[in-house]
């Protein structure tokens, strides 16, 4: 891997930037690997990277049916935070946030992680109570969460309409200064480049069509490019977790829904923090290009179509304009949908499956992007040791039988 530095930038400037090497190989898949990772999104690529880096397992293939980061990694609204309520979630998301803070240096790739802070607004007394409780719970877990009054929010975000005459007035909110945004494509590319450098084969346009089992354990995967053997297979296919689980003969407590987002035309910097409202269903940040990146809740029905209904966008625009009257005449450039796999408790499943040697990482619902490095880190540990790391042990599939659910519907901040 040729390292990016000011010197390599200068050297390539002289040659018109035409001699940059390819950032990862496009190898033909081998007939067998130690570990196969199904899904070349951020989580899958991060898993491959940490398998190679932390555990020395480099005979690994990442199989991607389309192109890298073309699924939910490239469709989310790029928000990163760790202000979740329960100890289990706080440990998982905070572990991830700490990895984010050094990720660009770690990968030698600028993921444009910008810690501009995240505000979660409260619009009614129940919101206020839940928000204050969550902020205090966060602090007990060492997470930099605080409660802001309406005036304090107004100082941080002057364009926010905090009039008491609003139908859903802003009564305060939680604030996490270390939260922010990152460039989602760069996260996929950075992990891909670093994993490839350590010997991981990244195979695009390779769709898994079946999971072969023998004697109760996994033997490999059938793909559109033939059978590939492996003693360990990991499913990291956000949006298709249930489809892959069905190939392996087990069921998941997951429902797949469309989640829509959109961006506006670029404008001068006006919004210096991420603002989210779980109660009236909109969240917004401003990208470095100046576009507003806007998301909201899921469409109610099950779907695999990567598009949703227009009335959902209409609703989130109404909420946006209510909170930010200044945006009323902005034009929207494009909208899209991704498929999110939602668990009943709005927490992910990371761990072993009923099939020996088969692991799953999915069910992140609407909030998987923020967890990308931490998710890959604990999942790599789980695959390497054939046992969950203490951080992801509570997120097992078995919690649905034991009843030890991790209810994060409040912290998810998005209607599921």
């Amino acid at each position, binding site marked *: 891997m040729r390292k990016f530095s000011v010197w390599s930038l200068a050297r390539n400037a002289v040659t018109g930037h035409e001699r940059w090497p390819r950032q990862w190989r496009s190898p033909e898949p081998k007939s067998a690997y130690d570990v196969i990772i199904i899904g070349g999104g951020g989580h899958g690529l991060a898993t491959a990277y940490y398998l190679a880096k932390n555990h020395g397992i480099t005979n690994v293939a990442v199989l991607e049916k389309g192109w890298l980061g073309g699924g939910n990694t490239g469709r989310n609204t790029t928000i990163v935070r760790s202000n979740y309520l329960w100890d289990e979630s706080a440990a998982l998301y905070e572990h991830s946030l700490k990895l984010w803070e050094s990720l660009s240096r770690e990968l030698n790739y600028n993921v444009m992680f910008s810690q501009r802070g995240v505000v979660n607004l409260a619009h009614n007394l129940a919101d206020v109570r839940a928000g204050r409780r969550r902020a205090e719970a966060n602090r007990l877990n060492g997470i930099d969460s605080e409660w802001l009054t309406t005036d304090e929010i107004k100082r941080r975000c002057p364009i926010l309409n905090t009039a008491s005459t609003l139908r859903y007035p802003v009564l305060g909110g939680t604030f996490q200064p270390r939260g922010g945004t990152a460039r989602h494509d760069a996260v996929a590319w950075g992990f891909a480049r670093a994993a490839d450098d350590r010997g991981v084969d990244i195979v695009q346009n390779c769709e898994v069509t079946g999971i072969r089992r023998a004697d109760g354990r996994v033997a490999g995967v059938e793909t559109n490019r033939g059978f590939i053997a492996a003693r360990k297979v990991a499913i990291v296919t956000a949006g*298709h977790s*249930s*489809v892959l689980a069905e190939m392996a003969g087990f*069921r*998941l*407590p*997951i*429902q*797949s829904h469309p989640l829509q987002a959109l961006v506006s035309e670029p404008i001068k910097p006006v919004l210096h923090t991420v603002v989210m409202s779980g109660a009236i269903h909109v969240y917004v940040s401003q990208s470095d290009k100046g576009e507003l990146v806007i998301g909201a809740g899921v469409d*109610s*029905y*099950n*779907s*695999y*179509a990567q598009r949703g*209904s*227009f*009335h959902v966008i209409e609703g989130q625009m109404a909420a946006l304009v209510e909170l930010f009257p200044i945006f009323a005449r902005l034009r929207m450039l494009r909208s899209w949908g991704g498929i999110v796999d939602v668990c*009943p408790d709005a927490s992910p499943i990371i761990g072993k499956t009923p099939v020996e040697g088969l692991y799953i990482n999915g069910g992140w619902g609407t909030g998987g992007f923020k967890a990308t490095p931490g998710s890959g880190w604990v999942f790599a540990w789980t695959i390497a040791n054939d046992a969950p790391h203490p951080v992801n042990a509570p997120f097992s599939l078995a919690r*649905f*039988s*034991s*009843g030890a659910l991790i209810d994060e519907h409040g912290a998810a901040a998005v209607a599921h």
Partner: protein
Amino acid sequence: MLRIPCPWCGVRDETEFHYGGQAGIARPPHPDALSDDEWADFLFMRDNSKGEFAERWMHAAGCRRWFNVKRHTVTHRILAAYCIGEPAP
């Protein structure tokens, strides 16, 4: 936006309806006789098919009755609407 055929009121916009998830899940007759895994299976495990899917809708802004719909989860095409208790067509 989906256009959903209510068996009683006819075709209406999706915004008039409330979604109810997978159709045809029968409550076990003797819940206390189930193991934890069987109870979890009833409570949480769901079909999540890519393709035809039988689901429940309620006409919240109309007759307020529940009914079942068979819909394709990739094309969103509605293949049938039928009453609760009727077998899927």
